């Protein structure tokens, strides 16, 4: 009988998983904003990935495989309101602080704040393609949707961010983000409701 947990296979898996952890952290932080919750999400992803390691095909992209798991965990957690309760104040302090009326280079905090106002589907599409460097095809596989859908989401996300940045309308106050966040939650509820099975294939 083949030993699916052969020590060398496990060691390879572990090594590859460690290698993608920084990317998981970056993706998670882009998705949910708060560094501590993002890291919780990554640890949850690690547990799930470890438990499902037999389903990982060696030679395929560990980063894409774990992003699917992280994404599904995020959607489930969001649905359970895990990120909703303490979003407002803490995020406002830690991430949503920006020098008012600044000129010149765009600060990373501006970028992050603008990103967090996007509907989750567009945010994740832009994160995957524009930040994570995935192709449209890979991003479509991660999100379980058509390539055209990803292209459209990325296009809309870019247009929204571009407009926000060029017009100087990046939200600066937590209250405005709370409004945006409610909108995000509503859209997310619909997203999750329409796709009940989080699959990590």
């Amino acid at each position: 009988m083949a030993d699916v947990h052969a020590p060398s296979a496990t060691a390879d898996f572990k090594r590859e998983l460690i290698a993608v952890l920084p990317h998981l952290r970056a993706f998670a932080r882009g998705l949910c904003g708060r560094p501590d919750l993002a890291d919780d999400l990554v640890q949850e992803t690690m547990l799930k990935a470890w438990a499902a390691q037999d389903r990982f095909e060696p030679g395929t992209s560990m980063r894409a495989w774990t992003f699917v798991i992280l994404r599904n965990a995020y959607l489930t957690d969001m649905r359970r309101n895990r990120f909703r309760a303490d979003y407002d104040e803490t995020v406002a302090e830690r991430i949503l602080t920006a020098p008012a009326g600044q000129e010149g280079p765009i600060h990373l905090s501006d970028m992050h704040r603008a990103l967090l106002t996007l509907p989750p589907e567009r945010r994740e599409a832009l994160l995957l393609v524009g930040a994570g460097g995935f192709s449209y095809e890979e991003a479509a596989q991660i999100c379980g949707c058509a390539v055209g859908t990803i292209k459209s989401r990325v296009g809309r996300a870019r247009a929204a961010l571009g407009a926000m940045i060029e017009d100087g309308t990046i939200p600066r106050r937590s209250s405005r983000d709370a409004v945006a966040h409610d909108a995000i939650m509503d859209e997310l509820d619909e997203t999750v409701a329409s796709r009940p099975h989080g699959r990590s294939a």
Partner: protein
Amino acid sequence: MADKKAMQALARKAGGPGKAKGPDWAQGLRQLYDSVVDEPLPENFTRLLDELDKGDNG
């Protein structure tokens, strides 16, 4: 890392059609991501993996 170059190339392309170089903020998006990737990995992550590994073997 090998795919870092690919990521950068993609991010450059990310500016939109008809532009040789993306808008500044497109670069910022990648920087935002890379800034987290470049952070030192907190120890509790590797500790967790070691525990999982031990759990499987023991």
